[in-house]
């Protein structure tokens, strides 16, 4: 596996960093004596490959001294394939001048008006990350799969300080805006055009009304925040390794235990959540996972009922079914784990964001994540967003600072009475999903529309 990543940050008018990293290596994952071993190295000589393979077997045999059952894998048909994610403009072929030019133009537009500086705009940033990973998967079952992944991400961030406050606004989605795409992905967002609004909102937040404290109300939530809501409260609990206790020490377990499959009411009948590793552009899109299982699509939640897990071959075998192929490793030196592919809130019949807001007499619209936390079974969550607006009589009103909402997963999704339509749906991403020991960072995709929830507890910041 080879991974090439370049990132740049322009901050307060200066190129703060430009970094490029290139890493290459291989790993062997083996079952011996019914248990698992894994060894990795960056030296690709034949002798080193022999050493690493032997080490993987040695590790597997050591694992076997605690074995309580043999590792068994659900069958998969061996595949020979070559696949690459599509792009229109190769980000690595765009000149350095053009790449940095977009950042300078966008960041400059944040600082644009000198009055912003006087009013409290303290730090302005524009950043990009471009990414290419080439991966060859070979198995003793006969698979030979080459895949190439190209990703582009970036955004602008404005921080304002004053009046005892630190306020942040970003566009399109903080540090999370990333896709499998080419340079066109960033170009299409018009970061320079949106920058003045973002900077103005950051400054305005310093003197905005505080979010109402510890009340229950109706909330309308932006599509980018919904993508993280799906990630945390649906994507993680449907990971079958968590369900079976494999991640209990760190990431935790899951409230979605096997007896709930097919019967448990996860949310209202407006709620449909899709598992799909075939969606163009998603960070969880591929042809085959890291066990050689082909990409697939299905439903995690259909009409509000919990219907599907993310699996690997080992846990699929325990359930007596075929894996839906969600094993991915963060680089060549890490064990593949069950990972979200693209887990998406499917679009509904709620129309546009304005249509959802129009259905609220008294509530709050919350936009773009600022804070996120959820318990280790994925029930109790609390999110904060960068900005909120009062909703009065179906219209967006005064700006609100420090908005937060909290709830329990099934109750929260059960209170959903509107999901935006296809025109408001967008494939967002989470390029910072932590899991595993040693730690791994996963890239996951989450399509979402804005959505509306009733009787939600908001406001916990003193």
């Amino acid at each position, binding site marked *: 596996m080879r991974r090439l990543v370049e990132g740049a940050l322009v901050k307060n008018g*200066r*190129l*703060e*960093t*430009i*970094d*490029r*990293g*290139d890493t290459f*290596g291989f*790993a062997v994952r083996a079952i011996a004596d019914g*248990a*698992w*071993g*894994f*060894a990795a*190295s*960056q030296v690709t000589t034949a002798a080193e490959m022999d050493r690493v393979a032997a*080490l993987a077997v*040695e*590790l597997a045999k*050591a*694992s*076997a*001294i*605690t074995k*309580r*059952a043999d590792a068994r894998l659900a069958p998969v048909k061996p595949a020979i394939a070559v696949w690459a994610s599509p792009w229109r403009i190769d980000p690595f072929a765009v000149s*350095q001048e053009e790449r*940095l030019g977009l950042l*300078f133009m966008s960041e400059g537009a944040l600082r644009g008006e000198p009055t912003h500086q006087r009013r409290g705009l*303290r*730090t302005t940033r524009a950043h990009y990350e471009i990414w290419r990973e080439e991966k060859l998967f070979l198995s003793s079952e006969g698979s030979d799969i080459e895949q190439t992944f190209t990703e582009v991400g970036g955004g602008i961030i404005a*921080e304002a*300080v004053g009046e005892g406050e*630190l306020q942040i606004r970003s566009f399109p989605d903080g540090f999370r805006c990333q896709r499998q795409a080419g340079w066109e992905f960033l170009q299409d967002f018009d970061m320079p055009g949106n920058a003045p609004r973002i900077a103005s909102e950051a400054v305005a937040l310093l003197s905005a009304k505080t979010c109402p404290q510890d009340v229950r109300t109706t909330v309308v939530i932006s599509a980018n925040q919904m993508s993280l809501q799906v990630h945390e409260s649906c994507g993680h609990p449907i990971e079958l390794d968590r369900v079976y*206790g*494999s*991640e*209990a*020490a760190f990431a*935790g377990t899951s*409230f979605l235990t096997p007896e709930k499959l097919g019967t448990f009411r996860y949310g209202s009948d407006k709620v449909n959540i899709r598992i799909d590793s075939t969606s163009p552009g998603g960070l969880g899109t591929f042809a085959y996972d890291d066990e050689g299982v082909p990409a697939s699509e299905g439903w995690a939640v259909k009409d509000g009922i919990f219907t599907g897990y993310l699996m690997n071959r080992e846990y699929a075998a325990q359930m007596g079914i075929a894996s839906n192929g969600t094993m991915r490793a963060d680089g060549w*030196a890490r064990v593949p784990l069950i990972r979200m592919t693209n887990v998406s809130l499917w679009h509904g019949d709620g129309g546009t964001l304005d249509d959802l807001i129009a259905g609220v007499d008294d509530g709050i619209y919350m936009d773009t994540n600022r*804070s996120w*936390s*959820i*318990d*280790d*079974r994925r*029930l*109790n969550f*609390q999110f*904060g967003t960068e900005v909120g607006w009062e909703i009065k009589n179906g219209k967006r009103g005064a700006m609100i600072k*420090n908005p937060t909402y*909290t709830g329990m997963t099934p109750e929260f999704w059960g209170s959903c009475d509107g999901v935006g339509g296809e025109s408001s749906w967008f494939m967002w991403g989470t390029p910072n999903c932590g899991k595993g*020991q*040693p730690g791994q960072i996963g890239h996951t995709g989450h399509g979402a529309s804005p959505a509306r929830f009733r009787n939600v507890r908001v406001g916990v*910041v*003193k």
Partner: protein
Amino acid sequence: MSLFGERELRRVADEALRHATGDAAEAVVIARTGSLTRFANSAIHQNLVSREADVHVRVAVGKRVASLSTNRIDAEGLAKVAREASALARLAPENDRFPGIPEARPLAATASAFRDRTAAASAMDRAKAAKVICDASHAKGLRAAGFVSTDVQELAVANTKGVWAYAPNTVSEAQAAVLGDAGSSFGQRVALDFGDLDAEAVATEAVTKTLRAQRPRDFPVGAHEVVLEPYATRDLIGMLSGQLTGLAVEEGRSFMAGRFGEKVTGDFTLVDDTFDPLGVPRAFDFEGQPTERVTIIERGVAKDVVWDAGTARRARRAPTGHATPERTIPALPMSLRFEPGDKSREQLVKGIRRGVLVTRFWYVRWVHQLRTIVTGMTRDGTFAIENGEIAYPVKNFRFTDSIHGSLGTLKGIGSELRLIMPTEQFGLRAAWQRVPAVHLGAFTFTGATQY
């Protein structure tokens, strides 16, 4: 697993610097053999060894700077990365705040953080240590999940201005969450020497506590007196560490900004002390500069934060030698010690009529950085304290509170410090904290979960 060794890392650094063509260049070489034996349901399910070495080359052409890294450390790979970094630096716009690649300065002596027994630990050694925890849990009808690990790490920094610094170190660790059908708990030990790693202590702590943690009851949310076990103290102090930097002060994100010399929190002392022989000593930072001992908070008074060359220059003061290799996080306190008090854990609990004991936190995230407000959950062993005794397990809470504000209600500090190391950062396990249990007068729980 053997070291790459000082000679090999020197070769890598020298070769890279030889091909760099700017006004100044720097090579940071990070080498690591990480071995981690992971278990769940009281059996090993992941067992890995990876051997890695990367070089990070930073080239400056006047005020134009670029950084490249690669793990291709043969002659051709090193020449390529150095040439590309040099070319990229020439393309970069000038940064008038770039402080330059630093000159060599003398480094203080520190105790060695390398132990042969950790480097020599085998797959079977780790598996046997894991088996101790798995078997102890299984024998009580419980399920253990966690890991036993050994890390052999090397950090070397060289530049064209004469810097050469090299430090190897080892870390061994055992940690386990032990789960019953209706409650769980946690234990963790870190030692430089695998021979000192007490897996049995991890098992005893976690199993004993898990047996008491079954069938948790409801407990009202609100502000309560709490005893935080060292794991929970670390979760808060680790979160706070990002506020204790020159950059956070400069950007107005730190609660310390503008308040140096004032009482900002409770009566405790927090130092960054890389020379602590009970930590993981290292004399230099990622620019090869000497790391100084920094008193950050002294008996509740804000004293200082840590500084890299750039933020220090802008603040018209000397750096403290805490640079990281990641320029977006230019400095971090990586050797934090919360100075001990004089109370045993039992004495801390005795001091509470009605309150909560927290084993550890989970998913702690900023809600409002300037006010150090964070939210998170308790997990793996939360208990009611009544009349100075641990009374019964309670369901896990969500908390939302200010870190320095809640520490402002400090009523007692444990006498025993626990060494804890976060996961990898900057390509190796670079940071550590030594922290005690603490008794806080008020800690705000804003919600609860179902277990």
